């Protein structure tokens, strides 16, 4: 029987230098976006479900009315991008925790990335190409500023 004696002094190999340290910037992003999300999420919730008539006020006209104001377009765009990337980065972290099989890990990470990109594109498209007064809409569901109203 042979015995392998490991090398007594393995020289120190400096960690591979990647151009971008994703772990560090990801960590920082969670905290910076978190600060903005507190304001954005609770502001969003307050305006939508507390102020005015509360949750019953939400319908097509309510959303159209909000997006007639550039303030809410910017607000919702920020909320969309910050929260989605925040959530996706969080899911990436959890995947790294639990998915030990390298193939499975790659697959899950790719699925998270793909779904995030799709949702970001669709969401942004909705916010910026939104038509508040679509033709042949059911009368009475439109916001007050539409000519058809």
């Amino acid at each position, binding site marked *: 029987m042979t015995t392998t004696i490991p090398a007594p002094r393995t020289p*120190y190999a*400096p*960690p591979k230098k990647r151009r971008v*340290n994703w*772990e*560090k910037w*990801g*960590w*920082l992003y969670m905290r910076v976006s978190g600060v903005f999300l507190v304001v954005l999420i609770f502001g969003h919730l307050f305006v939508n479900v507390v102020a005015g008539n509360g949750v019953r006020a939400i319908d097509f006209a309510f959303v159209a009315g909000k997006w007639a104001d550039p303030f809410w377009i910017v607000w919702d765009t920020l909320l969309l991008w910050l929260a989605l990337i925040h959530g996706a980065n969080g899911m990436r972290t959890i995947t*790294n*925790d*639990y998915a030990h099989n390298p193939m499975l890990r790659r697959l899950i990470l790719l699925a998270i990335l793909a779904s995030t990109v799709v949702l970001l594109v669709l969401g942004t498209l909705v916010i910026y190409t939104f038509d508040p007064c679509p033709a042949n809409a059911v009368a009475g569901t439109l916001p007050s500023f539409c000519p058809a109203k």
Partner: protein
Amino acid sequence: MTTATLEGTPSAAPEVPSFTVTLIVRRYDPDVDAEPYWQDFDLQMYGTDRVLDALHKIKWEQDGSLSFRRSCAHGVCGSDAMRINGRNRLACKTLLKDLDISKPIYVEAIKGLPLEKDLIVNMDPFFESFKAVQPFLIASSKPDKERLQSVAQRERFDDTTKCILCAACTSSCPVFWTDGQYFGPAAIVNAHRFIFDSRDEGAQVRLDILNDKEGVWRCRTTFNCTDACPRGIEVTKAISEVKQAILKGNPNKVDIVLG
């Protein structure tokens, strides 16, 4: 000079209360058992006894095959960290009377490291991480005279000098349980000990090592490590100071958080 003598008649020491306690130990013998299992032991113990004494009593009087590590028996060597009623403690620093002895006391090996036998785990991965952070003084000057340090400079890293490498913190960390590649709290504590030492010149090397994918950024600030440390080291705080040192690129720029 007079020799100290005993004056008066010595009064008998007050009787130490005695009680029966049940220990439920997670047993595992790789030669016999496919899976670990729980085994009960009823013991007559005293108010001055610790969990370690109970384990000794089992080993010496009931079942000599029970395996566990201990050396100093006084909280110095760090060999007997184990999970006692679900919390990582040193068996030699945990008095039975401080636990709820009306219920059985559960004792098992620490989690996240390969189980070898009964309460013994393979500590190699733990010490590999410790070695990886270069836990020794790196200084360019020859040690031909004292390296002076002010009281404040010594105070800066005092907390992390107290580590006895028992692994209670690392094996209480949920990130370490699921991802064995993570350096773990103990390695970061021992890097902190040198990163914030004014005599050391290797801070940047260690910060680079811990800036890695499996380094400090994996920490989720759960505070399990701080709760577990038998030396009362503020482990989570030390980790966040290392994070700050990496972000600021220099340990001297890290604000001292009083706590």
